[in-house]
């Protein structure tokens, strides 16, 4: 019996990674088992480890910038992945009882990470996450490719808990987010309707957070207090030397920038307090929370520009800005759950938050030619939000339970803002809006048959005064899913529909989103697994817009126009894993995302330029697909050879104004995965 169970255990462990392989092949393969399943004993510890070292390659045709934005894998030797776990066998190690280290993509991949966890029972727990992402964006749709970023994002989080199993615990932590690297940007200078110039930008941003707190448990209560010290700094700069012409200049277009330098250091700090109180009894659970974050930022901006404006007049301009901005955020929450009977429970949630944005800001633009000044100062934005909900659950039987709830939100937004010239008082134009949302939800969970679970819910909401024309106003949603699970077969299906209609005096906006999805996972034996899914995401929106446009010499106002957008996305993936022999695993898959748009095959000619422009942006059909395959060959018990290939193909069926993109990329890797 024992040997049969051990065999079952080995099969189970071999079987588990099949699930994990349902991912992009260019990702690491360290989940493939190498080395002894039970690990190796070293003194009082047991060690399980694997390391995957390999070489990546990528050959790209077409728009390389877009490939870098979407995928970004390149060439080179990488430690594709690694995993190390060390456990004390009796739970009484001297310095640690458990250590877990995993890495991914070290050595140059665009997505690198390291996770470390170490703990000593009863003494400490330490968690660390480090991530480095190479970020590239050509910014085509937002600024015609004039905003390009080629930066690195780096994150690290450290959390240390002392006395983790005690009634009294101490928490310490440190987090850091940094972004740096080159970018291209634009700047409008020499007047509010002046020319726009391309600029080089050097991004440098850092965020640091230190945390210290503790919690105490006694008599059903748990109290947590945490203080955060947060610091943000930005030292990005923009510059351009040598004459450059303006971009898409207004007529006349003599504009030239001969010299430009801008620096805008920013320093922000947010001291924050967090308090949390739990209370647990058999018939009631209470969770109360308080937060205060007193954000404050101080900034300078110095901009010097010289050149010719669009009329050819010499310009020598300096802009100096200095000031501070404050944003205290205060919030409180109270969740109470009552369990008055074994079949019935009642949940209530109440929250209040207050965000106040205010600052003293002096904006001074000095024109050296005319010696004129313009000043703008001060803005206030305050948001107060009250929310509450109550939900009742009732269980009719082990197979059926239902729930129904009501929620409300009451939001007040206030603003004070104005522009003024030097010597004139600041008047301040105040605005206030109150916004009330009422929504009801209801749903059920039904075990229709053994292993067959059905969930359905619906929601309807009304907002009397939404903040923007695209916000929720008259909305309803339906969600339903069906799950059928056996040990070797899993079938799921889901449907979700959200509808919003926001009709206001001048315009109307409506959005209708539907998502249909289905998934099947089948593992008939430990040697074969198949995972297939399909989703259809359908979105129709229509919004009222108005704008000015000039056809010929006449500029006309176009009210009551319609912005229509139709997205009809079909997405599918298929992953198959097959253990051909005891030593050889094959894995193949295919992912495709296709937006069929509104069904048209090309942009048809419209009767006038305005109609043509709106017609051309109503839909954006494209295809993004990625077939892949991988072979993993176990050379020895502790050594595997892997080879993988993945194709990325992207193509737009027809272009939006001014550009059309596509690329074909062949990527892959070979690697050795071993444990020693």
């Amino acid at each position, binding site marked *: 019996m*024992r040997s049969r169970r051990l065999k079952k255990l080995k099969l189970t462990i071999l079987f588990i990674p099949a699930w994990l392989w349902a991912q992009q092949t260019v*990702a*690491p393969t360290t989940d493939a088992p190498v080395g002894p399943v*039970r690990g190796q004993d070293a003194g009082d510890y047991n060690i399980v480890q694997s390391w995957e070292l390999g070489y990546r390659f990528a050959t790209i045709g077409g728009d390389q910038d877009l490939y870098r934005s979407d995928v970004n894998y390149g060439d080179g030797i990488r430690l594709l992945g690694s995993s190390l*776990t060390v456990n004390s066998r*009796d*739970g009484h190690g001297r310095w640690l009882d458990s250590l877990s280290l995993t890495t991914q993509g070290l050595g140059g991949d665009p997505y690198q990470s390291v996770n470390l966890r170490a703990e000593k*029972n009863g003494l400490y727990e330490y968690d660390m996450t480090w991530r480095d*992402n190479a970020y590239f964006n050509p910014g085509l*749709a*937002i600024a015609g490719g004039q905003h390009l970023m080629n930066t690195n994002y780096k994150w690290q989080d450290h959390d240390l808990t002392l006395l983790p199993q005690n009634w009294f615990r101490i928490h310490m932590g440190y987090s850091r*987010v940094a972004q740096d690297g080159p970018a291209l940007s634009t700047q409008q200078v020499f007047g*509010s309707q002046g020319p*726009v110039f391309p600029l080089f930008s050097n991004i440098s941003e850092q965020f640091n957070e230190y945390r210290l707190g503790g919690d105490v448990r006694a008599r059903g209560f*748990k109290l947590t207090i945490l203080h955060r010290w947060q610091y943000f700094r930005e030292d990005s700069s923009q510059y351009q030397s040598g004459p450059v012409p303006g*971009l*898409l200049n207004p007529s006349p277009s003599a504009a030239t920038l001969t010299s430009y330098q801008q620096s*805008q250091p920013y320093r922000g700090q947010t001291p*924050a307090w967090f308090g949390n109180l739990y209370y*647990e009894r058999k018939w009631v*659970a209470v969770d109360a*929370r308080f*937060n205060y974050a007193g954000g404050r930022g101080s900034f300078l901006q110095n901009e010097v520009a010289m050149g010719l404006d669009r009329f050819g007049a010499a310009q020598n301009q300096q802009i100096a800005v200095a*000031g501070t*901005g*404050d944003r205290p*955020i205060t919030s409180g929450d109270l*969740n*109470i*759950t009552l369990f008055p009977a074994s079949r*019935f*429970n009642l949940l209530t*949630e109440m929250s209040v938050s207050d*965000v106040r*944005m205010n*600052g003293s800001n002096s904006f001074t633009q000095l024109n050296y030619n005319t010696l004129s000044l313009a000043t703008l100062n001060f803005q206030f934005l305050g*948001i107060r*939000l009250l929310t509450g909900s109550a939900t009742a659950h*009732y269980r009719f039987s082990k197979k059926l339970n239902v729930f129904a709830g009501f929620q409300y*939100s009451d*939001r007040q937004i206030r603003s004070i*803002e104005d*522009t003024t010239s030097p010597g004139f008082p600041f008047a301040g134009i105040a*605005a206030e809006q109150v916004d009330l949302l009422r929504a009801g939800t209801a749903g059920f*969970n039904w075990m229709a048959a053994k292993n067959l679970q059905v969930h359905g*819910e619906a929601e309807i909401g009304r907002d009397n005064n939404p903040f*923007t024309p695209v916000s929720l106003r008259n909305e309803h949603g339906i969600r339903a899913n069906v799950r059928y699970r056996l040990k070797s077969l899993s079938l*799921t299906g889901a449907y979700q529909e959200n509808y919003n209609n926001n009709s206001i005096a001048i315009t109307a906006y409506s959005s209708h989103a539907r998502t249909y999805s289905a*998934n099947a996972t089948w593992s008939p034996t430990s040697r074969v697994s198949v995972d297939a*899914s399909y989703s259809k995401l359908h979105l129709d929106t229509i*919004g009222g*817009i108005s*704008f*000015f446009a*000039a056809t010929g010499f006449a*500029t006309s106002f176009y009210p009551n126009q319609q912005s229509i957008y139709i997205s009809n996305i079909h997405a599918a*993936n298929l992953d198959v894993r097959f253990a051909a022999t005891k030593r050889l695993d094959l894995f193949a898959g295919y992912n495709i*995302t296709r937006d069929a748009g509104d069904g048209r095959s090309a942009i048809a000619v419209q009767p006038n330029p305005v109609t043509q422009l709106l017609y051309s942006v109503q839909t*954006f059909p494209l295809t993004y697909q990625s077939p892949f395959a991988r072979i993993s060959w176990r050379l020895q018990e502790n050594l595997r050879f892997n080879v993988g290939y993945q194709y990325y193909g992207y193509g737009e069926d027809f272009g939006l*104004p001014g550009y059309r993109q596509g690329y074909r990329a062949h990527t892959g890797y070979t690697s050795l995965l071993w444990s020693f």
Partner: protein
Amino acid sequence: MATGYAAPANTQYVGSLACKACHPEVWSTFFRNAHFKSVAMKKEDPAHTGCEGCHGPGGAHVASYGGRKNIRVFSQLTPAETTAVCLECHAKDLPRANIYASEHTQADVVCTSCHSIHHSSGPRFLLAKQQAELCYQCHEGVRSQFAMPARHRVDEGAMTCSDCHNPHGSFAATWGMGTNQTMQQAAFDVEQPCLRCHTDKRGPLVFEHASVRVEGCTACHFAHGSTNTKLLRRPVVFTLCLECHNGAGTFGRETASVYSTPFSHNLLDPRYQRCTLCHVRIHGSNSDPMFLR
């Protein structure tokens, strides 16, 4: 949604070593399991220690040489019973008030739907699968969003779902209307989750783009993935901006309305179709209410 679970009548605890005799495949690697610390520490009572901490007293089970009717078998529990058993210990860190209010619990998605105590995929959190795969098994539509050309890098392993979501339930949001927030995990306990990484958008900025602060990032961006660059809700930027800046609002200083585009902005001029060519600080600025610098 019952909270209690009626354990088998037998209340005799026999200790984990008794389980080892018939379940060696579980016990032999149990020292790697996070629950093993309850055995090693020897501080908890028998009802909260080792095998019997979860499976209940094993006296009758041992006496009858096994069987499924005389011990707690999780595959036979209802979702509500499973939740109740796990929270007997874990409620000290995962408060029941939030767990029961979560959309997961509402949909009968309980602890064992995601966590595999004896066959976890990795040492952290005893997840049954890699986290994204785990979430995709129910959120199939989200899987397809993360396979779109513009996306957050979840499939690549650079992010996880729990960077932005709290699967165990969270408090109401402080942005938007505070509802329909799909279990988002607030950054720094109180702000939009996006700001945890995009710290440069956090401010405070003297001139906030009010829709960003009031409605949240999702007013303009999809959170998971999009066929549009920068995860925008529209393929070109002017359609996105004009849907709000159409003069139809009822808030702000411009004659009590949202800014509409001025007379000088000829929409047929490519320069004015690319709003952020000039409005470069669109998320908020310290020096310009129009976000020009």
